[in-house]
């Protein structure tokens, strides 16, 4: 497949500045053909601007965009074999659903437009709705029409600009699965822009996390989650407990000792960047166990908040130095702690990540709440 397709999408030093501010700092990125790629970041981080540059709706200030060996930087949107599913769907209100889906094919003089459009509508399970007008459909159906309208052209790259933002939670989950299925079925390159980290992790093969016009980290969802390279990624992708720590010595077994507010903990040496002494020790809430551990990496505290959500319980545990640690305990039948209980938290060495303490511990915390 790879040798027959259009090739990878390559951004080289892609930059966009508006009058007095830089929306996208020079960005280098290669998105392999056929992958489901997510651009993740809070609003205003430049992800949509990047997408619009790939679509041709925004002219880059500098840099190049290549699909395979073809430079498309200076081509007009209609000359690019790239289609977009817009956040607002942007369905043509005066045309039937069928005419909307046929639009791209008809512009290219495809003789088989009608049959292909019908197939695309069948793919999104709207085969019966061809004669309707977009405003006669529900939000979720309109979203699927927008998807069919872009997919039917079999573009080299399909761009999705927060396409699920306007849907309610249940429908969004359903569409995430649908989108993933369709992407695997048609094998096109999908680039999905979203501020919803859960959505990005569920759907994408790899994720680029963007912040303030820069790409913070690139990787597959698990790598980003387990080993964030900055406090921004650590806080934006899921929740993190960041403990101020100081590396004190070696403990054998490939481990280092570190001091956390007077408590000695063990850290996997491989996780500590060379030469770093003052660090943030990051532990994900589900990696913290409530109750006695195996004698290492134990911290004692008091439960200051507990919220039960069925599948799990989330606790806030107040440390002696005043910090609240977040702990998630699976509802696996073990005893639940109550408000005010004195508890011991522990984690396995190797389950933490280590960041430079020079970074802002609150970066990425105040991210947009999933609200559509």
């Amino acid at each position, binding site marked *: 497949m790879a040798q027959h397709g259009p090739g990878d999408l390559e951004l080289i030093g892609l930059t966009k500045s508006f009058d007095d501010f830089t929306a996208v700092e020079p960005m280098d990125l290669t998105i392999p053909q056929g992958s489901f790629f997510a651009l993740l970041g809070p609003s205003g981080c430049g992800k949509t601007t990047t997408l619009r540059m790939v679509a041709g709706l925004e002219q880059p200030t500098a840099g190049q965009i290549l699909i395979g060996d073809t430079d498309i930087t200076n081509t007009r949107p*209609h000359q690019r074999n790239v289609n977009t599913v817009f956040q607002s769907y942007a369905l043509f*209100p*005066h045309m039937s659903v069928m005419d909307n889906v046929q639009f791209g094919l008809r512009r290219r003089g495809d003789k088989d437009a009608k049959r292909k459009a019908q197939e695309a509508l069948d793919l999104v399970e709207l085969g019966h709705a061809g004669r309707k007008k977009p405003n006669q459909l529900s939000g979720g159906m309109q979203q699927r029409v927008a998807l069919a309208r872009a997919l039917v052209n079999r573009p080299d790259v399909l761009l999705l600009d927060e396409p699920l933002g306007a849907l309610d939670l249940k429908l969004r989950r359903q569409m995430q699965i649908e989108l993933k299925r369709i992407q695997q079925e048609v094998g096109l390159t999908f680039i999905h822009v979203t501020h919803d980290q859960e959505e990005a992790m569920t759907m994408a093969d790899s994720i680029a996390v963007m912040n303030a016009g820069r790409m913070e980290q690139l990787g597959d969802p698990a790598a980003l989650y387990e080993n964030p390279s900055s406090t921004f990624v650590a806080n934006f992708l899921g929740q993190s407990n960041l403990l101020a720590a100081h590396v004190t010595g070696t403990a054998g077994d490939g481990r280092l000792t570190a001091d956390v507010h007077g408590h000695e903990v063990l850290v996997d040496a491989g996780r500590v960047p060379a030469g770093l002494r003052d660090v943030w020790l990051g532990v994900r809430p589900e990696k913290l166990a409530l109750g006695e551990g195996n004698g290492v990496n134990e911290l004692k505290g008091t439960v200051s908040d507990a919220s039960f959500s069925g599948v799990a319980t989330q606790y806030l545990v107040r440390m002696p130095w005043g910090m609240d640690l977040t702990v998630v305990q699976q509802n696996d039948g073990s005893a639940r702690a109550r408000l005010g209980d004195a508890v011991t938290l522990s984690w396995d060495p190797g389950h933490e990540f280590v960041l430079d303490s020079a970074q802002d511990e609150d970066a990425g915390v105040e991210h947009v709440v999933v609200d559509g």
Partner: protein
Amino acid sequence: MPAWSTWSSMAELAVLSGGTARPPVRRANWVPYALLAPGLLWLAIFFVAPMLTLLSQSLQEGSVEAGYTFTANWQIYVDALQKYWPQLLRSVGYAATATVAALVLSYPLAYYIAQKAGRWKNLMLVLVVAPFFTSFLIRTLAWRTILSDTGPVAEFARATGLTDLLQALALTNNDSLLSSKFAVIAGLTYNFLPFMILPLYASLDRLDRRLVEAAGDLYATPWQGFRHVTWPLSLPGVVAGTLLTFIPATGDFINSRLLGNTQTVMVGQVIDAQFLRVLDYPLAAALSFILLVMILALVSTYVRRAGTEELV
């Protein structure tokens, strides 16, 4: 427990239980009629009644001195058509030409104001409406100065060969721009331009630019994007603008009188003369009625052809 407290807790209960405790009493729905009444009354007194008077007037015979009697004289319509069909046709022709010219001039302007003008939008709209601060008559008279033989417009037209072109098209009869078909149509176009621009502006202002972007994204060239998205979505404004221009332009009698010649007489001028100078009331009334029916027929065909079911 005081009564109001019982009530409020009952109301709370009603809300909590889905509000079924006290079904709302269905009120007599007279409000819409009351709101309609002043308008309907106005129309009855100032539109329906004069129409009926006009119809009855057209079917009477007699003279101003001797008085009129109703004789159901339908023959007058045949006579009026036989005598004045050239003026009727000319009115429709001039009005249609002026409407098309106004549309061609207005569309780019309205598009610019709606989509590109930014903070100049309001100023430009004020400028569009500004001519209305002077009277229709004065504005039309001003065109005699603008088009006068010694004016810059005439000079420009002579220098660029426009004068010859207009003459070749039989829009003017000689080197002068005034007293010609051209002057009448130009006057009509100018006078009704704001009626074209404003509805076009309103519908282009509503146009979602993301739709045009989407068309480009789906391989439409800028021209195809206009043809398939912008134009059809602005059709309500086009229809409204052309109607607001065409209808009053057809019945106009000022432009042809001030800017035209004896060969450019429009039906409005004839009606004006019959009513106020010849004092042939039945003929004038009959001509008015013919004009009315003609416009109604043309407009209803046009609106149907414009495909109202395609309008959003």
